């Protein structure tokens, strides 16, 4: 697919998303309040205004991409070249998994060490010092700063309730 054609598809998808949000999700998600305090604008006003603005901007964008009026974006040599988006999705999935389940089950310290370990493996670290020692060092630093220094209690394990970490 030509790049501008692909961009047009992306913009159209975003436009559909904005319309669904504004017409379906927004009225569902915001009640109209107690209605007796005489408080001027409705709670829906600001989000509705924003959604309408987004939809209009996307329509303008769609027209511009179809006409080809957008200046060719030479931005960011930083973002070009060989890219591996799948690795990002993998890393994000690992982070989300630990943030939603891992830290709760294993506790922040054990879970955190495992998370760093998995991430370093994903990023191609193969030396034992990097895979084993580094996560322990990082977690120890977090323990020192947060638990001992700032007196924050990071999540404790649901499984090993006796473990102080």
């Amino acid at each position: 697919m030509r790049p501008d054609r692909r961009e047009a598809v992306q913009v159209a998808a975003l436009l559909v998303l904005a319309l669904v949000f504004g017409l379906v999700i927004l009225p569902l998600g915001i009640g109209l309040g107690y209605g007796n305090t005489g408080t001027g604008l409705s709670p829906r006003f600001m989000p509705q205004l924003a959604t309408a603005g987004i939809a209009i901007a996307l329509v303008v964008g769609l027209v511009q991409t179809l006409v080809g009026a957008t200046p060719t974006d030479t931005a960011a040599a930083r973002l070009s070249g060989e890219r591996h988006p799948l690795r990002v999705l993998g890393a994000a999935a690992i982070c989300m998994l630990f943030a939603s389940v891992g830290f709760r089950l294993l506790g922040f310290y054990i879970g955190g060490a495992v998370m760093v370990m998995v991430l370093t493996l994903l990023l191609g670290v193969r030396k034992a010092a990097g895979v084993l020692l580094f996560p322990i060092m990082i977690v120890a630093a977090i323990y020192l700063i947060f638990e001992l220094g700032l007196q924050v209690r990071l999540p404790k394990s649901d499984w090993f309730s006796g473990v102080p970490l």
Partner: protein
Amino acid sequence: MKAAALINALSIVALAVGAGCSAENDASVYPSKPITIVVPFAPGGGGDTFTRAIALQAQEMMGTKVFVENRAGGSGTIGVGSVARARPDGYTLGFVSSSPVVMAPHLLNVPYDPAVDLTYLARFVVTVNPVLARADAPFKSYDEMLEFGRANPGKLRWSTAGINGASHIATLAAFEQEGVAATFVPMQGSSEVMAGLLGGTVDVGVISDYAGPLAAGDIQVLAEIGPEPIPELPELPTFKSRNYPLAPTIFYGIAGPAGLPAEVITKWGEALRVITASDQFKDVAARLNGQVAYLEHQQFEADIKREIDTMGAALRALGMLE
């Protein structure tokens, strides 16, 4: 005075030593492991500071670590909800105040029933919430303010620290009963209200932090919205003396999940009684603008249940609840 302080200190040491000995490896005696007190607000606020002061003193008396954990969010309902769902063994307790217990359950969808799911151990502090006005306002007393409000419908602008908080609803009900049509300007936090009051955005504010501007002579105190008069200004009217539908007590206390063992209830009741009587705690309370007001478990629980009911009735009367 000195002797009393010494005896007090000695008794704390004795308690600590006693608790330390008996607690060692004996799981049948409470407490045998660290206790966590959940603060449902972010660190640094008044409730957080009070709880940490209590935790430090309780730690000595109980002979075990007492951690303070901040679990903020949901106007305090997240932290209180997590306490309500905790195992009722006395090792997870929580700080409670009016907003997540008396107000939020009526107006928001919260994951607990404050009258059923919590055991209220003891109240330790109440705060005064006066009706304030600028010193150069066209009225010099509460009655003159009401008169001004009746004479100028919609012109009297007022605000409180929280939208739909106890002081907001109580003042709304009071104005309704007095036939004053005032304009409520919603604001967030007592500092915004004080700035609005001093800068002329609002004419009347109901907030508890007012010591600085009062001392400077910038503001005047008109009335107190709670049941008890302000100790320094006993001649001012209170919402209770005016027989308004609501005269809420803005309180701080400690609670645990429903079904706590009797031993935990008595132990914490006693600990909080001793702590609130200590000079150290009185000092902390005075500096943080609170009045030490210990209230034991059964009375506290009865008080809260009554406040929840009167608040519900007042909200229905104002048309804010079906």
